[in-house]
């Protein structure tokens, strides 16, 4: 049994899993040195790989606004209009501070894939068990664990999962958006919340 703790959530994986808390690995800290973004957990069961991003937003929903919308906040549009009016648009670019949550996951996925390619090239023993998705056709599933205190969470998760899977099409990978009750076929860690 391996326990991975991320904030208030603990993920308990069975003995048949190989798991690493990627952003706390020696490889990430010493070699990558945070120059790339990182998925939270890399997990493997036989030849199936699961890369997990955790956004535990329960109690922090307001602070995490506006992550749920792919549309830029109106303040960004106003800033862009001001930049254009000042004729700064050739030198200045305005963008939202908090990325759309799916864009953030995709950036972390791309960066983690890049890091896996480098680890494979350098034969890094710590990361090697988790690098096959970067250079083989090993199965890879991306899971966004998103907790959000919302009555119709299932609807939100369904809409975000659609956006995630559209973003994943070029990578030939499938994704899921779930909360801590996590019902993803084949992905079976026990998730508990610290009180």
């Amino acid at each position: 049994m391996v326990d991975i703790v991320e904030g208030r959530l603990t993920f308990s994986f069975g003995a048949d899993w190989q798991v690493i808390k990627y952003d706390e690995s020696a490889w990430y800290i010493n070699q990558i040195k945070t120059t790339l973004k990182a998925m939270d957990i890399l997990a493997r069961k036989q030849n199936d790989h699961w890369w997990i991003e955790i956004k535990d937003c329960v109690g922090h929903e307001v602070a995490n606004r506006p992550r749920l919308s792919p549309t830029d906040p109106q303040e960004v549009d106003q800033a862009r209009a001001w930049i254009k009016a000042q004729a700064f648009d050739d030198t200045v670019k305005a963008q939202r501070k908090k990325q759309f949550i799916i864009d953030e996951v995709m950036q972390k996925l791309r960066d983690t894939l890049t890091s896996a390619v480098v680890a494979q090239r350098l034969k890094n023993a710590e990361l090697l068990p988790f690098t096959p998705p970067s250079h083989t056709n090993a199965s890879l599933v991306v899971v966004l664990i998103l907790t959000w205190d919302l009555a119709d969470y299932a609807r939100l998760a369904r809409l975000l999962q659609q956006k995630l899977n559209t973003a994943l099409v070029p990578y030939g990978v499938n994704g899921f958006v779930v909360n801590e009750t996590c019902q993803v076929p084949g992905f079976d860690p026990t998730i508990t919340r610290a009180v």
Partner: protein
Amino acid sequence: MLKKISVKNLTVFRELDLTCCSGLNVIVGENGMGKTHLLKVAYSLIAASAEAGKKDNSTDPTKTYLQKAYADKLVGVLKPESVGRLASRKQGRDRCQISLSFDDSSLNATISFATSAKTDVQIEKLPTRWDEQSPLYLPTRELLTIYPGFISLYEGRHVEFEETWRDTCLHLGAPTLKGPREKRASELLKPIELAMGGKVILDPNGKFYLTIPGSGTMEMPLVAEGLRKLAMLARLIATGSVLDKGYLFWDEPEANLNPRLIRRVAEVIHVLAKEGVQIFIATHSFFLLKELDLLSLQDPYPLRFWGLQRNSEKSIYVEEVDSLKELTNIVALDEELAQYDRELSLANG
């Protein structure tokens, strides 16, 4: 089977090519992107050919006949003041061109016309035979309540209703099927009649009613709008008008329906596509899109999505994909997600 729809300088389109699949073709896009125009243009050209082929004194297609027949049908269906009004006015003197290509190339047709065209189009490519399969066009609203007397009104007066309404009313008035085809229709009708809680009947007085077991009959205008739309579909299945058609064009099947009824409609569309009807729909509903996609995962059928989008020059282009997840821009989806942010913003002052 229609293989390709190509338009140049048609209403909002500069140039667009759509490759069709043999089953369900779904047009997705914001309002004002020309979704309905595409449905109506393809319907008009096919319907003009099918109607000519069914006339008693029908001869082989001629340019003389078709240059007026196509123009009349386009004007009747899209209701511009003249056919030339369908040509884009932003393109100077460029002509509008519309081409339909079929798996049977003898049906291929290309027409063109200038903005000044009044009652005729130019035939660039003449089909060498008439289309034996008729198209059916279902508008966004139900037609059962306007059916009584509508056809005679349309034929006898200058009225501003779309010709698709007349065409579909003709199908509504057809007698119901008998024999083996009735059995096939009954199977398809079961889930719809269950959702409606009854059956649709056409009374000898020319009015439609919903018969509800144990409750008698209800005049169609008293039936809920969404159920009336389902009733129209039920009637067209019972008369064989849907099953027997080669092509079904359906604008916003989801209009006035709640999600439970949309699910039934998606099932019917799925069955029809599996039965070999080539279907073209335009929709704004993410729920319907998802249902159609899920049905494809459960029981695969030919499915094509056409996502209409504007590029930086404001021209409309199409993203053609075979699964919903490949469609990169679904306004209904993005707006629902934006709604969560707004809800949170309001809840926290």
